[in-house]
């Protein structure tokens, strides 16, 4: 019996248990008292809670068993199958074993007509019988658990049994468990990044990685290969990331975003706001792959034409400028909404005071509102930087992969994110320094964005508190 069918059967059983226990509890209420008000108060919990109590006892232990089986079951069956084979036809290496099992499973599930390996072909009936055997055992155990759990709970259904607090305690536990997922994810990220990075730093020294200026992750497969030095100096990547994300993109995004926010909050009439705000939201909602395609297809050739026309002969078709400008435009809505929040948080009295003294609106904005909102705006800009340096698709598609250490915006530079994609999407064995370096880059990216975010959020929070 497959896991899905088993789970469905268990669910059916749970529904039956719910209905039966609810009816039993309702009967308790009805049997002793004729008066309707007394009927309800004669049992501690409403009948539905008794139903839930029995259903949960019938369902949860058996469900845990079935889910555990569906996770580890395959490997148990595989182990048993291989152990029961004669010693000479057992696969020896891990790789052999995997190929062997893939074939056996393919035949068993009907995806393959027959196995190429005669030993695998011979193992198919054994695999099938062991699988059936174990499935039956698990199904029997699950039925036993469901019956005994449900039976135990059923016997406890009495008029004065406190079913509601127990069901509610269960709900509470589920709530707490689900909020643990966020912590688990954070730990998962940190641990997996650190684990793989430590592997990487065993092969390449952290000093070389953080301060080296030569990035060429292609490691030589043959000794005489040219141009595959396997150098892992990540400084050109860090520079490229900062150049595109924190310099070019911000040169575009800060003035445009800030001025948009000022116009929207101070000048625009409500009607105009109604059109302009959604427009910025649309700009924020466009997927980054679309921006990347646009940058590569339309902006990059235009930038190159422009560079050639002003006499820069070595302009490449993938330029830092194209990626940076498009990324800046992508960030405009973000900067604008952060600035919008900060400016609206400035007390109206300050603005009114300035206007009452005869200052024009623009003088008020420049001399009063912006200085007062500055910490909030700076925090918002830092958040925008953190988002820009973590942005992937635009740089993958438009910035190129050449690790140049250059300040020329018409040349191609590469970024941390673009390299991670490049390193992990090729055909490479997982344990090579090349693939592991992607995790080290990921760790740096994670640490930097985390610090930026924490600092920026602290700045914004302190600023908000100052005016509250």
């Amino acid at each position, binding site marked *: 019996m497959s896991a899905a069918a088993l789970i469905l059967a268990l669910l059916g059983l749970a529904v039956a248990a719910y209905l039966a226990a609810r009816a039993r509890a309702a009967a308790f209420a009805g049997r002793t008292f004729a008066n309707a008000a007394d009927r309800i108060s004669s049992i501690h919990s409403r009948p539905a809670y008794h139903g839930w109590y029995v259903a949960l006892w019938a369902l949860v232990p058996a469900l845990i068993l079935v889910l555990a089986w569906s996770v580890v079951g395959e490997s148990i069956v595989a182990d048993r199958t291989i152990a029961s084979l004669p010693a000479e036809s057992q696969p020896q290496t891990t790789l052999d074993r995997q190929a062997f099992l893939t074939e056996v499973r393919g035949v068993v599930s009907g995806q393959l007509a027959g196995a190429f390996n005669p030993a695998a072909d011979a193992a198919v009936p054994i695999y099938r019988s062991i699988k059936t055997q174990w499935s039956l055992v698990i199904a029997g155990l699950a039925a036993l658990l469901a019956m005994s759990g449900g039976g135990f709970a059923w016997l406890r259904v009495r008029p004065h049994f406190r079913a509601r607090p127990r069901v509610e305690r269960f709900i509470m536990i589920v709530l707490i468990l689900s909020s643990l997922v966020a912590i688990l994810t954070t730990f998962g990220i940190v641990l997996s990044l650190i684990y793989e990075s430590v592997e990487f730093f065993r092969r390449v020294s952290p000093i070389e990685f953080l301060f080296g200026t030569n990035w060429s992750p292609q490691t030589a497969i043959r000794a005489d290969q040219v141009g595959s030095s396997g150098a892992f100096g990540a400084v050109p990547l860090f520079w490229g990331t900062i150049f595109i994300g924190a310099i070019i993109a911000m040169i575009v995004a800060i003035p445009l975003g800030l001025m948009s926010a000022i116009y929207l909050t101070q000048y625009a009439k409500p009607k105009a706001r109604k059109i302009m705000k959604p427009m910025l939201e649309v700009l924020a909602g466009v997927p980054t*792959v679309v921006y990347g395609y646009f940058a590569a297809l339309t902006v990059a050739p235009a930038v190159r034409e422009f560079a050639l026309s002003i006499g820069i002969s070595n302009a490449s078709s993938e330029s830092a400028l194209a990626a940076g400008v498009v990324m800046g435009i992508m960030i405009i809505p973000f900067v604008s909404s952060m600035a919008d929040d900060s400016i609206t948080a400035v007390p109206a009295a300050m603005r009114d005071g300035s206007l009452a003294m005869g200052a024009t609106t623009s003088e008020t904005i420049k001399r009063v509102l912006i200085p007062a909102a500055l910490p909030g705006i700076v925090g918002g800009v830092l958040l925008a930087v953190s988002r820009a340096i*973590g942005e992937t698709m635009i740089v993958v598609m438009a910035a190129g992969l050449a690790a140049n250490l250059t300040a020329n915006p018409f040349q191609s530079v590469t970024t941390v994110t673009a390299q991670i994609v490049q390193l992990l999407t090729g055909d490479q064995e997982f344990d090579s320094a090349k693939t592991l370096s992607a995790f080290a880059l990921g760790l740096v990216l994670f640490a930097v964005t985390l610090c930026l975010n924490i600092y920026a959020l602290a700045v914004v929070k302190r600023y908000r508190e100052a005016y509250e």
Partner: protein
Amino acid sequence: MNSPRVQTDWASPVMQARVRSRYAKERRFRFMGFAALALAGAFLLFLLGTIFANGYTGFLRTEVKLAVEYDPFTLGIDSSALAGPGGENALNTANFQGVMTAAANARAQTLGIAAKDLVSDGAWLALREAVRTDPGLIGKRVDVWVPTSGDFDLLGKGLIDRAVPEANRPVSDTEVAAFDTLKSDGAVRTTLNTTFLTMADSTSPELAGIWGAAKGSLLTLIVTLLLCFPIGVMTAIYLEEYAPKNRFTDMIEVSINNLAAVPSIIFGLLGLAVFLNFFGMPRSAPIVGGLTLALMTLPVIVIAGRIAIKSVPPSIRDAALGVGASQIQVVFHHVLPLALPGILTGTIIGMARALGETAPLLMIGMRAFVTDVPGGLTTPATVLPVQIFLWSDEVARGFVEKTSAAIIVLLVFLMLMNGLAIYLRNKFEKRW
């Protein structure tokens, strides 16, 4: 104390000029603000305009009329074989390629071009579909509309500049002349590209379709929704209603706020290291993509859920507690139903973001070249944004319009989702 004050003469030319210059500055500043917004709007229009102008032809295709002889001898089957129980099998083994090649060769020879420049590699599929619907065609000679080759497709849509010298153009002068002959004969037409809307990826642009990626996206999003909606809502309930003020709660809150700001590619690394390498889940599968995106979307839903729950006024809770509801009953019977529209809006916005996400899915191998429409959660699949990325890398000229057309499809889906979110917000939003 009473020092003599000089009265400012506001009417004097100096002061007048000063006021004028201040007002001019004011107008300039105001204009700059408007210009910034206008620039952003112009960029958006330019972006959408370019995509649409490049992409709408992707939904069309050029077809050519050929006289096809359904010769039972070449096909290797006759109509009686199709009627029997093995009819489907016979149809799949029949040599439609041969019939197609014969027809295309005959027509191409009269035009002086090669058959492969005239019709698409997959044109024979149209013949098979025709016979599937009408087995009586076998043995007859009929005119059939079949898709043209990629280059003729571009010629038909006017996407090849004929003024470019022959050497720099994908089609030769002979081919252009042949196309014009066909056109004047009325043997070329442009129709809706059903292949694009119903098939999966292919190496030839005229045979590539978006449905495989769209279904991959759908399967992935279903997994994401099933995981992150219940977990997100329960986390939001716990944090907003029950969590005691202690270190543990702080830790949960800090992790959620951080996860919301972690670059999406980091989630891809997590998926690769944990789901693929540690748990040994299948590469390129929608279930792994859905899991990864669920972790990414979770903070969005939790934050939206908390805001929605917080906006339910405390009087509702007090009233429910007052009539004897338990803490759990207060939340599940009263607060949650009132907060649900807000939570749903946040969920849809989070799902829209997950739909447009590319980078984490590249990490877990969803950039595979998949020519079948994915059938289940563990079969290799790709998703819409990754398909766009893959097509944008293709060198064949015909993929430019396909990429843009795929972007149009993606944007339409995003617009529908966001539209639904706005509708829900407007319909159910309560001001307390």
